[in-house]
């Protein structure tokens, strides 16, 4: 399943780090961030609880870049 989220982050390198953090979240098959459109696209693995995965993903993002937001 795929979902797109709006995000807020200030620098491009931070966006790249967030992308990596979301990718490494269990339950996420793939993730892409476009800094230009400030959008995060997540491909979830089959049968996962999307809300739980996203909560974990946000936590992981906060580790690499404190000043970021994902609008779930």
């Amino acid at each position: 399943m795929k979902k797109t989220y709006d995000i807020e982050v200030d620098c491009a390198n931070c966006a790249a780090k967030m992308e990596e953090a979301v990718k490494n979240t269990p339950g996420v098959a793939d993730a892409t961030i476009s800094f230009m459109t400030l959008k995060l696209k997540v491909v979830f693995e089959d049968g996962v609880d999307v809300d739980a995965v996203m909560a974990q993903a946000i936590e992981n993002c906060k580790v690499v870049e404190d000043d970021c937001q994902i609008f779930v």
Partner: protein
Amino acid sequence: MSSKQKKVLIRIIISLVLLVFIVVLDNFVNFNKLILGTLYLVPYFVIGYDVLKKAWKGILKKQVFDENFLMAVATIGAFALGEFTEAAAVMLFYQVGELFQGLAVGKSRKNIAALMDIRPDYANIYQDGQIVKVDPDDVEIGTVIVVNPGEKVPIDGVIVKGNTTLDTRALTGESVPRTASAGEEIISGCINVTGQIEVKTTKEFDESTVSKILDLVENSAMKKAKTENFITKFARYYTPVVCYSALALAIIPPIVSLLVLGDANWGDWIIRALTFLVISCPCALVISIPLSFFGGIGCASSNGILVKGSNYLEALAEAKYMVFDKTGTLTEGVFEVTAIYPASDVSEKKLLELAAYVENGSSHPISLSLQRAYMDKNGQDVDVDRIADIQTVVGRGVNGCLDGHRVCVGNEKYMAELKVSLPRIYDEGTACYVTSDDKYMGCIVISDVVKADAPRALAELKSSGIKKNIMLTGDLKSTAEIVASQLGIDEYHSELLPGDKVDMVESYMTQKLEKEKLVFVGDGINDAPVLSRADIGIAMGAMGSDAAIEAADIVLMDDNPKSIALAMKISRKTLRIVKENIVFAIGIKVGCLILAAFGMANMWLAIFADVGVMIIAVINATRALRIKK
């Protein structure tokens, strides 16, 4: 400017004033070092408290190599070494740079968004006899919507009332308005220019052209180019490498010099190391590459060229082989009367009249072209009352009774059956022979015509580095040969079945080098397998064709082959800007790093290498938006 940015601006102004005040004061009053340092801490904290906070949080989370950490270490280090002015100023300039970057990116984001501003905000529908504005999402299929002059057509549909002209520039880049009248299909995203029209919707908003295009363009930035991934990867190694180098620079040379010369000179080396840290931020690179591609894609879409991803825009610059489908791509795909050969005692007009009348009832492309030619010549439609008893002879032609004469129009086989002897016709195309009461009246040749811009477009492609233009067609060899020579094409393959086209493209794909890209250009109808097999699939004339938008990597909204040359030009320019930025940013950074290592760069140069380079790279990247035709 967002409220966040305004806050930063205020902090910049306050700390700048404080800083200048302290510098001036320092000249008049002889402070001791401790008091002076404490004074400088005030503007330093005003401007840098958030950076310090973020750096501290980063350390707690074991994320030490981010730019906040670098700035914190560099400036605290400078304070410790008694370089108070430098420390506060470096932090100040770092924040100025960040603010500029934020503004520049925000502005270009807005510029690009404006280029793609085709999203309709509302639809007008009738409710209890009144016209009300509703969300286009809520309009059901089959609803009649009203589009006033100046408004965007929100949903695809058919005009049921009114005539108007439509501005399709946002969709196709074409500046000549198009006329539309009742009964015609109309595509969302066009702007209604002259008259009020009523449109019966045929699709939901989500399925309408405008939604599909917006979706496509917004997602294009998700498909990242190779260069973009390379830079992200590069940044991941670059920052730690520079940090460890800085650490090594702060420790190893002083120890060596302590052992050799007996004097460590710690201060000097630590300043060099701190300078290193300031230079090391990879943001200039990381921001400018996607920004350039985004600009290029934005520029393309404002010219009616939709690119589905940065990767395709990047690959297009390396295109070396262009494979074209003939019909509808290089030729108009509509049949036209190209020659009229009346028998000796018959006028051209008479011949055309006979043919047009008999073919009147049919919607076959050939019949339509005969009727159109008649309309063009006489300025009037056929008079239906003069013709009666039309019969179609399948695979042969038609006959009918015109003013009491039996008129037959058909191919060679039909004429043979009627036992009419024919002159030889050498023209390319389809010959329609006409008889009246079994007497030969003449022949009309109908063929597909080459698009007016096609030969120029192909020549432009060649001059922009395409090695071979190749044409594939299902037509007979004789027809293909004539078209190929009119176009100036390099190679052509004729009499191909749809499946053969895939095989042809595959054989070209195996012959070429890996880095040479093969592009297939089709009209998106029936050639989906070939479009997806090629490195890059381009579909043209895609206005309103869902299949084409799905199958292709690059979609040309109009059907002008010159758009391909323009797409290539945009692709190449974008890539050149990307390369300029990579070379420029890495070059300046490495250069400054070397200067810093040898003690020839101060903090000011370091700040330039960080924020200055970033700003220049961002400005350069936005040039991609303004590539001209």
